[in-house]
């Protein structure tokens, strides 16, 4: 297997990018395994966990400290990183397919902000809920609220920016700014209402971080993220068809309204879960699908699973940078992804200048 992905050239022999995409999937699985091991071994407490990992692999007993660092700090953080990275990248790819535009991303168009507002509401106002409801929803109150917040913002965004099956990019981005500003302002009001305990919960929202990773959060996010990712194979053909436009997609036999509904629900669930457990982490949803389209093309059958794999790896890598560059202190991971991702976003804008209605 070759590590280089050949781009189709004019007049060249038929290159089936589906084959390349499958090869890439294998590479990305290996990459995720490697970053996972690195992420477990690498952290503020030094490299001693290499030894712990080797001990563990050899079936030897771990020291108590190593055991706590490995199983209660780094492992939940690893799981959360994989869930969040996969969610962000897949919801970016699905949203871009839905809006027929590579710049659509839950973080940029206000969906994350809407999910964040709902999550903050749940934290601050949840105390006023009847105990029966609080007991019923338990740990799921925040992620489920974030889901509904993301869903509502996506619906508003789609209604505002899509007329007769055509999405206006300018309207979408501007509506996203308005939605984000509104959600941010309302979130600000809630932060003022919050008590000290809640404020501590809220501080990590600003930039996004995996630092608060616990098994509770992992368990709360897992079913929602898995549900959102599980629908990907069923909407891949629909999203490919939507690239032709809504009317033409319908004529190829796709139930356009159903694809749209499932996509919006899936984006809301994945974004909501990611925001609920890790705050707003930007640009993963832009960068990952864009790199994959460059490598193996826009076919959503391979784009969506590959985005999940690469998104998870990239977020783990960003997290390793976030927690080691100024160790023992920690950078919010949102800063790392923004520093890496914003230039890529600008690069896409530059390359698309004048094309496709921008």
């Amino acid at each position: 297997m070759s590590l280089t992905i050949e781009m189709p050239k004019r007049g060249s022999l038929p290159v089936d990018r589906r084959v390349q995409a499958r090869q890439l999937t294998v590479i990305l699985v290996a990459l995720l395994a490697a970053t996972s091991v690195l992420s477990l071994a690498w952290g503020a407490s030094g490299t001693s966990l290499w030894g712990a990992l080797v001990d563990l692999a050899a079936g030897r007993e771990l020291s108590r400290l190593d055991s706590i660092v490995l199983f209660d700090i780094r492992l939940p953080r690893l799981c959360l990183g994989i869930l969040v990275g996969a969610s962000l990248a897949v919801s970016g790819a699905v949203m871009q397919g839905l809006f027929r535009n590579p710049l659509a991303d839950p973080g940029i168009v206000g969906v994350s902000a809407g999910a964040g507002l709902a999550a903050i509401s749940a934290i601050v106002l949840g105390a006023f809920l009847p105990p029966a409801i609080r007991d019923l929803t338990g740990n799921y109150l925040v992620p489920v609220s974030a889901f509904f917040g993301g869903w509502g913002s996506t619906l508003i965004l789609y209604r505002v920016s899509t007329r007769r099956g055509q999405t206006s990019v300018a309207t979408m981005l501007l509506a996203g700014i308005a939605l984000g500003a509104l959600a941010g302002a309302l979130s600000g009001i809630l932060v003022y209402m919050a008590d000290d305990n809640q404020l501590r919960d809220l501080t990590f929202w600003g930039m996004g971080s995996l630092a608060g990773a616990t098994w509770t959060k992992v368990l709360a996010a897992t079913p929602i993220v898995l549900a959102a990712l599980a629908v990907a194979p069923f909407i891949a053909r629909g999203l490919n068809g939507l690239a032709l436009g809504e009317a033409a997609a319908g004529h190829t036999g796709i139930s356009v309204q159903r694809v749209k509904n499932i996509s919006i629900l899936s984006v809301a669930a994945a974004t909501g879960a990611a925001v609920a457990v890790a705050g707003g982490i930007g640009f993963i949803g832009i960068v990952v699908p864009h790199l994959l389209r460059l490598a193996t093309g826009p076919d959503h059958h391979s784009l969506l699973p590959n985005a999940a794999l690469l998104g998870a790896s990239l977020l783990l890598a960003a997290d390793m940078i976030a927690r080691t560059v100024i160790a023992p202190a920690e950078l919010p991971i949102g800063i790392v992804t923004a520093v890496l991702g914003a230039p890529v976003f600008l690069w896409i804008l530059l390359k698309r200048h004048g094309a496709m209605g921008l």
Partner: protein
Amino acid sequence: MQAFDIEVVLGKSQVLNGVNFTAKPGEVTAIVGPNGSGKTTLLRAMTGEIPYSGKVLLNNKNVAGLKPWQLAALRGVQPQSTTIAFPFTVLEIVRLGLTAGLSAAEKELPLRALEKVGLTGFGNRMYQDLSGGEQQRVQLARVLTQIWRPVVDGAPRWLILDEPVASLDIGHQFTVMDLTRDFSARGGGVVAVMHDLNLTAMFADKVVLMDAGHIAAQGSPQSVLTDANLAQTYGCPLPVCTTPHDGTPFLLPQARHARVT
């Protein structure tokens, strides 16, 4: 394919008033008319792209009761122009037709369809890099892939085209129009919105002339494309002649300054 009492209101204006339309399998039916006469609107209503009142039948089944995939198995619709959102290759676009119709097992169809529209060897080119006319033919190849066989289980399938030759050079106009005749000769039905009246006269079995939201005349090219009909709908004199060998009508428009009176 039949349409009864089609009425379409766009905004505040009534674009179609009670249009009744019939196209038979085995024939090429052309819809012609001046700009704004409602030809594309009629096509878009009959394909369900815009809301309408009235009834549309396809092989005697009401299309309102059919699911998108059932319709896709019966008819392929080529849009006027299509911009693609992502960097798909030509072959990837044509393959979108493969997954839609009844022919999912036949993997070589996209390549054969590309050959038919004169785009052999274009499979790995980026769709976005092609000229408008080439893109239009890629879309036709995609639609042909979707309804490759004109007749399935004794039932005709329908090729519905919105200005299929609008941005094509004259050679490829003939390539595409020959394809429509081939499709109808093998039992399928073709409905096409056309601008070029000469091509229409050469290739259509039936012509439907639209004017201001209703059908002004319909029938064979000889009976519809007459001096009187065309002068009335297009508002300028369009002398119709006939070819000596088979009597096919053709138009020889003349500029005002050079007109022989």
